[in-house]
């Protein structure tokens, strides 16, 4: 049952991805800018520019270029990066880890920040702690990530010996430490959503009949809150995180740049500015896939948390 559901969802991704491919391809090609001039500079003579265009197939009509891109895609070939002259897939593989690590740690931090705050707010609904919790994190929403990042670097990393001022370590412990501030930066941006969502669903859940039942059975307050309240309240928050993943990925682009992390986002920015079409196309596709897959994952997590959710 669950497996069939899974397969169906995967099948339905195909038209989504196809649509995405078309949009991505034509958008990047329609943005003004000529990769040959961008990469080779104004001094490059016309012959060199011509040879470049010939080599990368830019002399062919756009629809033909699209078809060959699609053809390559079907064979798992995302094309060759024009600025690095290596296969896009190879370029991207090396960049996956920092981004995934950043996403995971940001999600973790967001939950660590949200859980206690939301619980406090929900249990003290409409009283001072609730107001404080509802207002203060909203500030985080208004602060641009690049600014928060610089502040954290200036006031924390420069003062705390063991925290690096940006960069990605060579060993795993170093890398985890390197992720602390970037993770915090992203979490500060996303926590307002998760806190609010968790708070409101917690308030709703705590008024449900089964909570009254649990209390009537004489369960301790903490256990009621943990096993019956939070477990149910967290379900909508998982969805919120899933829906916001696109935004989260967008935020990591900026955060990776500020913290000099060699992730997918940093690569995307470089590729867009250099009009490295194959890399932009490949990355947009990967980001799109990531969003679709994480949403699927969110649904699966939701189903496993809530028996009422049917995977069909």
């Amino acid at each position, binding site marked *: 049952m669950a497996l069939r559901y899974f397969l169906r*969802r995967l099948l*339905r991704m195909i038209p*989504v991805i196809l649509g*995405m491919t078309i*949009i*991505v391809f034509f*958008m*990047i090609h329609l943005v*003004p*800018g*000529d990769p040959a*001039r*961008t*990469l*080779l*500079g*104004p*001094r*490059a*003579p016309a012959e*060199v520019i011509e040879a470049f265009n010939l080599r990368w197939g830019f002399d062919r009509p756009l629809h033909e270029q699209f078809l060959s891109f699609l053809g390559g895609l079907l064979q798992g070939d995302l094309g060759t990066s024009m600025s*690095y*002259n*290596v296969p896009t897939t190879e370029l991207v593989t*090396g*960049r996956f880890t920092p981004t995934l690590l950043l996403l995971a740690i940001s999600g973790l931090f967001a939950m660590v920040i949200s859980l206690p705050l939301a619980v406090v707010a929900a249990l003290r609904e409409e009283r001072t702690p609730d107001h404080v919790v509802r207002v203060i994190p909203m500030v985080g929403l208004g602060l641009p990530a*690049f600014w928060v990042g*610089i502040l954290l*670097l*200036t006031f924390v*990393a*420069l003062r705390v010996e063991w925290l690096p*001022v*940006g*960069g990605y370590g060579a060993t795993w412990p170093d890398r985890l430490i390197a992720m602390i501030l970037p993770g915090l930066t992203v979490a500060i941006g996303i926590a307002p959503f998760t806190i609010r969502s968790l708070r409101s669903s917690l308030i709703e859940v705590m008024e449900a009949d089964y909570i009254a039942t649990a209390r009537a059975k004489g369960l301790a307050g903490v256990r009621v809150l943990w096993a019956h309240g939070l477990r149910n309240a967290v379900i909508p928050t998982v969805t919120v995180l*899933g*829906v916001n*993943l*696109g*935004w989260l*990925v*967008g935020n990591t*682009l900026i955060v990776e*740049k*500020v913290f*000099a992390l*060699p992730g997918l986002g*940093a690569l*995307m*920015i*470089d590729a*867009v*500015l*250099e*009009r490295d079409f194959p890399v932009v196309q490949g990355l*947009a596709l990967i*980001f799109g896939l990531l*969003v*679709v897959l994480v*949403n699927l994952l969110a649904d699966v997590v939701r189903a496993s948390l809530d028996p009422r959710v049917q995977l069909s």
Partner: protein
Amino acid sequence: MSLLRKKAALGVSLILVLSLIAAACGDDAEEETATTAAAEVTTTAAAPATTAAASADEEPAPDDDMAEDDGMMEEDAAGPKRGGDLIFARHRDNTTLDPGAAVETDTIYVLDHIFETLFATSADGASVDPWLASEFEVSDDGKSWTVTLREGVEFSNGQPMTSADVKFSIQRAIDEAAFGFLLSAIESIETPDDMTVVFNTSFPWAPFLADLSVWAAAIMPADYAGMSAEEFFENPIGTGPFLFDEWVPGEYIRLVRNDNYWQEGKPYVDSVTWTQVPDDNTRILQLEGGQAHIAQNVPLNLLDSLNEKEGITATTFPATTVYWVSFNTTIEPFNDRHVRRAIAYAIEQDAIANAALFGHGGPACSVISPAVPYHDPDTPCLESNMDLARAELAQSSVPDGFSAEYLVGDQSPNLPIVEIIQGQLAPLGIDISIRTIDPGQLYSTIFVFDYEIAFTGWTMDIPDPDQKISFMFDPELGGGDSYSTGYNNPEMIELVRAGQTTFENADRAQIYADIQALNAEEVPFIPLVVLDAPFAWSDSVKGLWVNPVGKRHLEDVWLDE
């Protein structure tokens, strides 16, 4: 199902929107190509002298390691320390390890330390000196150059450099390198013996030695030391002070000491790691935090305050970058020299230099920067004068003014400069609207003449003005429609060609002085400012200097930690 689609669509559109924003905004740190890499192509005439003096002042006590390595430092016992790992933070990464494929400055400045050329730009940028060559002789007809190679130069694999390697390398550059066109005057290469190479050019070619100093003419072992080209450039072998160690794209590239280096005792540091730190502020913070020794592309507005911090030097090195106003002279009213002259009279370069460059760099009068040979300090420029501007405009086809669009790459420090000009032209009745563009796309736009007035400039690769001058003023030879202005003046073209074939220094200087004067009179390009290259480094870094074409020579740098 529909929810899924919505979510996916939301995600995708966010990503697209963000990429487009990134595309639209560009970034201060974003650099384009070798040529335009304005801020970072740098240099200094005075630097070697000053750094040498500085190190003499604060020489550390000789340490044991050094004493053992006898003969390595001729400066005496108080000379540079050996050892240490130098970290150089920059905003972007290498794109290749092949000098033939390299077109962009940051890649080139790393490759310069793996490969070297026969001739190199001097410290003050004023001349081209023998480097892997020891001497040269040019025939009377100016068409044959006999170059003697330096004795005792070995590649990093221990193989001695011979004329066969030189012939192979230069021929490869002509055939394959993106910048091989600079060497296109070469007709044949002969190797009479192991240490002599004869280059025959198809016509007398005065900038020849400067052209040989271009990175694309890097010397590598003949036949890639028996490897395929692909294998070779995965682990390249050169004569440079460092050899390739590791490259993690997007993160860092590291070179380590070449023990076979021909300059006795150099390099001083064990390794150099160039890290990619795209954000300007983060680069500076890394320097402050001791995570980097040298940071390049420091924003000009932050330079002075950074310099005041303890343990950090932040300054600029003279560079070859000149920015100017350029006109699409193929359309009205910019085909009218009176219009261009009126604009030139109205522009006040001093105000621009002070306001937009924060005192780093200066006003420009000539199209050739002061750090480049044949710069004429006496170029008769049109000095700022509103009365003359009005008089000039009154003689033009548009005496009451006009509206025009000013195309500018959205990148520091361009926009403030263009805004100042907008204000300076307003009293003439010239109504300027500013059109910003992603910096990387500026050239593809002007090369199809899709502009009226543009903000462009030039940074030199070689210490000879010909490459730039022919590109700017010779619509055919330069291959770029006179840098996309469409300017076509037979008198100018004649001068440009004379500059290429005149060997006598004084005569050549006169020709380039005439070219600079003619531009000042006709102003297809109105020079605005000369840009210097900003760097910041920690006090533990000694001996850093950068010449006007941006070469860093990190073999001269040592660490006092």
